Every structure is written in structure tokens, then in C-alpha cells.
């Protein structure tokens, strides 16, 4: 069955929006028997301007921090009426919604064991309100609330490890994916849907406006994040690492950082140059931790 139309065109996402592409890929993988709860954020705004909607599946937006508990209610209602077998409930939203303001509610939803697929479209900042820092903004990225300046090198904190927080809840399936690897993403979504209980997939989605890169480069940038080791794409099933996409030939982080305006300041001062080394160390730690380079 052709499911490519379930997230219809005609929405108002920016050119090169990684989230719009990923949302379409997710629905192509799930098919039509889903109900989606979607928090406030770019995806919600560009897809549902009353009286128009891109959603050819049942879809609800309530607030910014409550997509997971709204999905809990949907799932509970389906259970109560014997319809849960046929329908996949999805809570999907941005990094701000899922990793920050909605994290307590998401934790409750995971802990209760609802049969819900949670998806975080990780564009690494609050984009809808104009590129403010979130808990998933990477180290040193310049955003409007963590700007680079005379005495600042951008965001001073490391990206919060939401997948490991999910693992700590005992989720049967946790994965990261990238819009740069659509087949991998497709496989992961299909696998998640086939598993009962709470599932979590975090999808890395470039935002040309927020990351300040050429809108034609979104997919390349997404792939570079994986190939440098800065965004490993992995699967953790019942607490065990079961897959990690290997890096063929290791790329230095500068290759990923240089085309993005949010990291430009790192290339403009000696202090910035020092920071590049630290970011390389972050990538190297990921490579080590997840065994991203084939031994031998």
C-alpha cells in the first residue's frame, strides 16, 4: 500500500527542513493505522494551520509539554474499547517538548508502560520560538539564548543523553536514527511498531535556519553528524546495545561543524580552536562507547 501521502505536502516548513522529511518517513513506515499526539513546535505549526492540515491520519495537538500524557489517554481509551490491537499510538515532538518541558510527563508515560511509540525530532534547539537553547543543544552551539560573544563560546553544556534516560526506564526498545539514513529510520520505526510497550526513537533532523547552513545540505549534514561520531545511530533492546551504525571512514568533526553558522565562532579565535579539540573528544568517546569503527 502506498503510504507516502499520509503526511501530505502543502505544509509551510522551511526549505530543507529535516523534521518535515523525517515526519513523512515515519508515517510511510507506520502506515495509516496510527493516532498521533503532537506537542506545540515547528512540526505542529507548519502542518496544521486551521483550516488546512497535512495529516491524513488522526492527529491531535494539545499543548507544549503534554504530548506523552495525551497519548497515554488515547492509548487507555483504545484499551478500554478493545481497539488497541489495530492502532499504534505515537507521541512525537521536538527536543524542547520531549527532553525539557515534557520530560517529567514523558517519564511518567514510560514508567507506566503504555503501548506508545515516542519520537523526538531532535533539531537541537527551540526552533519554533526562534532558536533558543534546549537540553539537547550540543556543546558550543551558538543559539539566541546561548550566543557566542566576546566571553562566550556558545552553549556551555553537553547534550543531554535522552536515549539513556529512556533505557533507564526499562524500555524494551530505544533507538536513535537520522533523517540522513532513511532506510535505517524506516527499519527502526517498523521494528518499534512491532513491539508492545513503550518505545523511543530519537531522530536527528537538521534545521537549516537554526543551524545556519545551506538548505540544500540538510541530508549531507545529517550524515556527517553520524559519520563523525557526534550523533551515533544505535539500537538498545531490553537494555542491550544491539546495533550501532558503523562509520566507514572516520571524518573529523570540523567537516561537520564548518558548514554550520551555529559553530562559526569556533573557527574564528584561538579559544575556539581549542574547543574544536574538545568536540573531537566528544566524538571519539562516542566512537569508543558504541564501537562505531570496525576493529581490524
Amino acid at each position, binding site marked *: 500500500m502506498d503510504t507516502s501521502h499520509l503526511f501530505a505536502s502543502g505544509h509551510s516548513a522551511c526549505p530543507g527542513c529535516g523534521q518535515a522529511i523525517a515526519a513523512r518517513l515515519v508515517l510511510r513506515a507506520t502506515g*495509516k*493505522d*496510527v*493516532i498521533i*499526539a503532537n506537542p506545540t513546535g515547528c512540526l*505542529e*505549526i507548519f502542518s*496544521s*494551520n*486551521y*483550516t*488546512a*492540515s497535512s*495529516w*491524513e*491520519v*488522526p*492527529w*491531535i*495537538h*494539545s*499543548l507544549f*509539554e*503534554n504530548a*506523552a*500524557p*495525551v*497519548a*497515554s*489517554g*488515547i*492509548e*487507555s*481509551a*483504545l*484499551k*478500554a*474499547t478493545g481497539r488497541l490491537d*489495530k*492502532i499504534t499510538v505515537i507521541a512525537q515532538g521536538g527536543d524542547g517538548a520531549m527532553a525539557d518541558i515534557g520530560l*517529567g*510527563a514523558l*517519564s*511518567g*508515560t514510560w*514508567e*507506566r508502560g503504555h503501548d506508545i511509540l515516542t519520537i523526538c525530532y531532535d533539531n537541537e534547539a527551540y526552533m519554533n520560538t526562534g532558536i533558543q537553547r534546549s537540553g539537547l543543544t550540543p556543546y558550543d552551539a551558538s543559539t539566541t539564548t546561548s550566543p557566542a560573544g566576546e566571553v562566550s563560546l556558545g552553549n556551555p553544556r553537553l547534550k543531554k543523553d535522552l536515549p539513556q534516560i529512556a533505557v533507564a526506564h526499562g524500555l524494551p526498545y530505544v533507538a536513535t536514527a537520522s533523517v540522513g539514513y532513511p532506510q535505517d529510520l524506516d527499519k527502526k520505526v517498523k521494528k518499534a511498531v512491532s513491539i508492545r510497550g513503550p518505545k523511543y526513537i530519537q531522530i536527528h533532523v537538521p534545521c537549516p535556519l537554526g543551524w545556519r547552513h545551506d538548505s540544500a545540505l540538510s541530508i549531507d549534514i545529517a550524515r556527517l553528524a553520524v559519520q563523525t561520531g557526534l550523533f551515533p545511530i544505535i539500537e538498545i533492546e531490553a537494555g542491550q546495545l544491539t546495533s550501532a551504525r558503523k562509520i566507514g571512514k572516520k571524518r573529523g568533526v570540523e567537516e561537520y561543524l564548518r558548514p554550520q553558522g551555529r559553530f562559526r565562532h569556533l573557527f574564528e579565535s584561538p579559544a575556539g580552536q581549542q574547543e574544536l579539540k574538545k568536540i573531537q573528544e566528544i566524538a571519539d568517546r562516542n566512537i569508543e562507547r558504541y564501537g562505531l569503527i570496525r576493529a581490524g
Partner: protein
Amino acid sequence: MAPRMIRGAQAVAEAAALCRPQVISAYPITPQTVIVEELAQMIANGKLEAEFVNVESEHSAASVVLGASATGVRVYTASSSQGLLLMSEVLYNIAGMRLPVVLTCANRSVSAPLNIWNDQQDSISLRDSGCLQFYAENNQEAVDLLLLAYRVAEDHGVMLPALVCVDGFLLPHAYEAVDVPEPKEVDAFLPPYQPLYRLDPDEPLTFGAYAEPDKYMEARYMMQRAQEKAISVIQEAGHSFEKVFGRPISALMERYRMDDASTALVAMGSVIGTIKDVVDELRSQGQRVGALKIVTYRPFPKELIYHALKEMENIIVLDKAVSLGSGGPLATEIRAAFQGSPQPPRVSGVIAGLGGRDITMDTIKRIISQAQKEVLEAEFVDLREDMELEGVD
């Protein structure tokens, strides 16, 4: 059924169960907790079949019933005070999405200072949310109004959430004789919920789209009209209630010994019981005093209230809440009801019983004699005189 001596929380929980909610969300807060505990026990004992969702906050308690209601099932939850305030963002949203969620509010003061006792500041703060609001005088009304609330909220001409407010501790924790109706009577009064729209893959719809300035106002206007329409729906539901259950219900308001009265006390909730005792006593002494109980606060039945009060010389409105910087919320609205009338009655407003302070018969008698002498603007009654009040001169 014959009335039984039961605790208010049990009566409310039994009434909620009789409405056959399919999803219930629960989060503890005094004095509401006793209600959801009763429901949990009913489910544990196999007496009620429903998905019982133990959430991690009231924000999620409201969000869970929002999601379930949008999926087309009847839902229930309850809260108080800080919990209700934490829900408030979601309750506004539920109202705007036109979902007939029904909850019981066990009324409690709001912090600070932290205080767990009764007043009505919590639900009054949700005055403008779009939720219907009913206030019970006793546990019988806590039961009856819950049944009524579902029927009105789910009426296709209304489709708004409803709060049934019961004074914390004074009702949920009190043992009173309550007639909890038979299931088949309730089924006759309250048919299964028929959603207008629901989340369903076979008929995919978008809920909660955002509206630009060229459309937003229409959505809010429709809510205002639905609130107005609810007045007649409540009246009609009240008549039907009397037919089905064979006993009366005061759905919008209750006039108590108002014929030939020249002074009327106006209030909401359990304090009306005390006020009625005062009215009886003063009547026996020949004073022409009556009481008007406001049951439905949203929609505000202002025309009925106007007609019930227009012949009065003195109206005394007792608020168990205060709009800080203005005065008693109910008093303000009663005064507004007489705006432009040729000979408006004197309307006094008093703030009483905040944070669980007793409102005694003596208090009420004192207020009456004071208000007969001068108009009280927003008088805090029974303030202590032995406490230094910093910054007050």
C-alpha cells in the same frame, strides 16, 4: 434507593462509577485524594471496569483525560487547590477543544501560605477557562450535580468540560445520608457518550490546529454561545432529573425563603447550610430574610439571579475567594447584574472562610446587621485582632 449514611468521598466515587467512565486519571492531593482512592478500590474489587491511570502530576491527569475524551470515551478525574492550578493550562485547552471532561474539585485554598483547608479560590481561579462550574451544598448535591454535569457537558449544543465543586473536608470527609441512585436510573438519565468527533484511523481528523487572527475569535465566540446555551440545557436536564429520579434538584440556583424577603444572603457551596439556619432563626424573630444559593456559577445565570433579587433592599454576597486587588468575585458579578437597573438594591460583599476559617451562625448574623447599616465593599470578616498585620495601617 433509600439514603445511606456514607462518607462524601464514597458518595462521589459511587456517582462517578455510575456514570461509567472508561478512563480515570488520578493524582493525590488533600482533600480530593479520598475520592480517587475510593475509585481505585472499586476497580481493585472488580466493581468498576475502567482504565485507571496513576499519573505523575495533575498536568498529566488532565492531559490523560483530554486524550481519552478526544478518542471518544467518557472520562473522570478529580483535584484540589495546587493540583487544580497545575491543571489549569490543560483545562483551558480542554474547553477550547470542546471536550466534555468532567471532574470533581474538592475545594481548597491556594498557597501561600500553604493551607489544606477549604475555601473556593482554586475553582474560582478557573472562572474564565470555559469550564462549566457547579457548587454543591451537601453530599447529595455532590452526587446529583455530577450526574447532571455529564449530561450537560456532553450535550451536543454545549460540549464543554465541567467542574463539580465540593467544599474540601466539609463534604468529602463528612458522613451524611445520601441517596445514590440505581444504575438503571442513571443509565436512563445519562445515555452513553456520543462524541461528535473522535480520533479514529478510519476517519482521520486533525484536532487542535492553530488558528490565526482571522479565525481565533470565532472559536472563542462559539464557546461563549455554548456557555449561554448551557443555561437552558441545565434547566432541561434538571427537569429530566426530577422525572427520572423522582426527587428535585436545584440545578441553576435555589431560592430559600425568599418570598417577601427584603434582605437576601447570596453564596455558593456548603456555607449555604449555615446561612439557611440563620435565615430560619431570623425569620422566627420576624425578620424578612432569605437566601439565594448559586449552584451554577458558569454559565452565570444572571437573568434568573436578577429576577430573584431585584425586589431586595439589601443583598449580602458571601465569597469564599477573593480577586485580590478587586474584591469578592461573586459579589462583583451580582453587582454587575444590576448595572443600569432603575433602583438597584444595596449590594454588600464580604470575604469569609478563607483557608478553612469557620463561618459560624454568629458571623453571618453579624454581617447581616452590619450590612443593614452600611454597604460593605469587600469586607474580610472575622479577622483576628490579636495579630500584628505587617504593612497594614
